[in-house]
């Protein structure tokens, strides 16, 4: 019987001015998999201000001395004149769809998600007795300590009668007083993540809820939710991070269930199906030709690919 295993894979890279790099995203090697359906792509260029402003909970350095705050509360100071990366994509060995890289914003044909939900392109089946596991890894600065996964929910239906059925787990907390250190691992395991014995379930999507302290920015201190399927396969995978430990917690952990940028829809209907030996490849190019006088024109870019691996059960 055919099943579809959801996956999200992220690669984070640093691009020096005029540098071109390639990202290979190959989903997962799953024995017996026949095809991979690519669902969508999220490309995020991390903003200069986001990283350096203490107003936004930045976690690298304090803001430069000349920074100011404008009427919207955004930190000012030196800023890149444009913030984008050039890109194109295709399949390794089969070529890119375009001859030249284009600004990444041009590719965006999907809106931003309005709820923290990832709807799978194909339903994922879980069999009676099997269980999912989930946990969260707290991100953010060490002293932030206040945003942690509240719960995770998989919405689906029972195969035997078509009735809606949810699998879920909640992290029980003692209110605001309970702080969570960064890098702390929080279990989200529960018997409610187990498929009932009387029928397989078709899971159509996953959503989560974060408990948030008003004093801390959701975008900078979010926790990474991880889901592990009955075969110990992690749904979210951080493929590679640049050397030098320059990646912030946020860059690594921010939403793969609800990416904070608008999506580039791929999908079966548009022909984005690849055989198991094919690799999706993205080329990224820094449009700057040199470093600025006051601004670091090195770009940090994250690329997140989501989709479903088609597998045949034994």
């Amino acid at each position: 019987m055919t099943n579809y295993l959801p996956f999200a894979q992220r690669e984070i890279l640093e691009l020096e001015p005029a540098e071109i790099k390639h990202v290979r995203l190959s989903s997962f090697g799953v024995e017996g998999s026949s095809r991979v359906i690519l669902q969508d792509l999220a490309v995020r260029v991390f903003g200069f201000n986001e990283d350096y402003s203490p107003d936004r909970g930045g976690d690298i350095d304090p803001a430069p001395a000349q920074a100011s705050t404008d009427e919207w509360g955004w930190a000012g100071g030196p800023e890149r004149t444009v913030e984008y990366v050039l890109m194109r994509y295709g399949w390794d060995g089969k070529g890119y769809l375009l001859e030249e890289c284009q600004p990444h914003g041009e590719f965006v044909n999907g809106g931003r998600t309005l709820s923290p939900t990832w709807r799978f392109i194909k339903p994922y089946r879980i069999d009676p007795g099997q269980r999912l596991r989930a946990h969260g890894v707290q991100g953010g600065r060490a002293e932030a300590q206040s945003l942690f996964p509240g719960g995770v929910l998989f919405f689906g239906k029972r195969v035997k009668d078509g009735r809606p059925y949810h699998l879920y787990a909640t992290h029980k907390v003692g209110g605001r007083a309970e702080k969570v250190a960064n890098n702390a691992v929080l279990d989200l395991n529960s018997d409610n993540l187990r498929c009932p014995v009387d029928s397989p379930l078709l899971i159509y999507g996953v959503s989560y809820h974060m408990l948030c302290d008003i004093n801390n920015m959701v975008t900078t201190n979010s926790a990474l939710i991880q889901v592990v399927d009955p075969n110990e396969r992690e749904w979210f995978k951080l493929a590679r991070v640049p050397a030098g430990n320059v990646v912030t917690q946020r860059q690594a952990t921010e939403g793969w269930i609800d990416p904070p940028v608008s999506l580039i829809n791929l999908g079966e209907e548009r022909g984005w199906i690849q055989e198991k030996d094919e690799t999706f490849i993205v080329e990224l190019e820094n449009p700057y030709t040199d470093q600025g006088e006051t601004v670091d024109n090195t770009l940090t870019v994250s690329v997140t690919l989501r989709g479903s691996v088609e597998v045949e059960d034994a």
Partner: protein
Amino acid sequence: MGETKFVPRWLPQRVTIPAGATRPLPASGFANTELWPWRLHWMSVTGVPKLETDEDPRRAYMGGVASRLTWQLGISQKGDINLRTLTTDAMLGTAFRLPQKADSTDVPFRFRFPAEVVLPPDSGLVARVSNTYQVENGVIHSPGILVNGYHGSRGIDREPAQLAAYGPANLGPKSAIPLDAADLFNDGGDDMLLHEMMLTGGCRLLSTYEGQNGDPFGTAAWPFGTAHSWRINPTTGIEWMPDPTPIPAGNIAPWNRPQYDPWNAGPRAYVFPEDTVLDPTQRLSVKVGNVDDVAITLNVALFGLLEVQ
């Protein structure tokens, strides 16, 4: 009867309606001058905000289309479509299509073709983008176009294909550039079926315009539906945009909402009832009433598919 091919067709008009007046749009503007029926899909409108300072700051910021206009539509020889005069929000504020939010960082104006449009091999698109940003000295950066489509028929044989071009530089006020046609060419071995088209007026708009407190707005980005205008045509066959006037992106692709639109410049769009067809020689008549006490300038565009036999 041969196979029907769909050719997108946009016709633009720019009109100024005096204060308190009702004016018909020029009769020739929305006429079907082709030999084939033109199936109408929507009529879009964008306003032209005046952003230079004025005595009354609220007046200076006028130019919206939301509430101070009334509309009447009818097809020649067939009578009215709408029986009542309606305001913009009542008739063109159709909420049943959720617009995509266009912003300067990562979301362009998206246009989805109502039917797949065929681009034969060895033909392409010619695109010309104009900076029609109303802000004084308003510059747009790296405007671009990207078209998604496929080679092959539906299903598993379908191969994704893209056409794209952008101008990798600032585009100054009131200037225009043709975009490099090499990457807008279908050099595949077979037809390319066009599915959607994305128009971006810049990755970030750079503006020297000063806010009311004298501070520069800096990189605050306002991708108005009217900041960048386009003329896009295939290199062979029937033109999509026969009028030489560039059409604002918001009028080409009205199902987008700029991230920041305090002037209600739109776009808004009226969706025609299904099977509204302009036969050859017929025209759409549009009357616009301005209930404000100042003149209002509008961009109005009519979009439909020519059904070419």
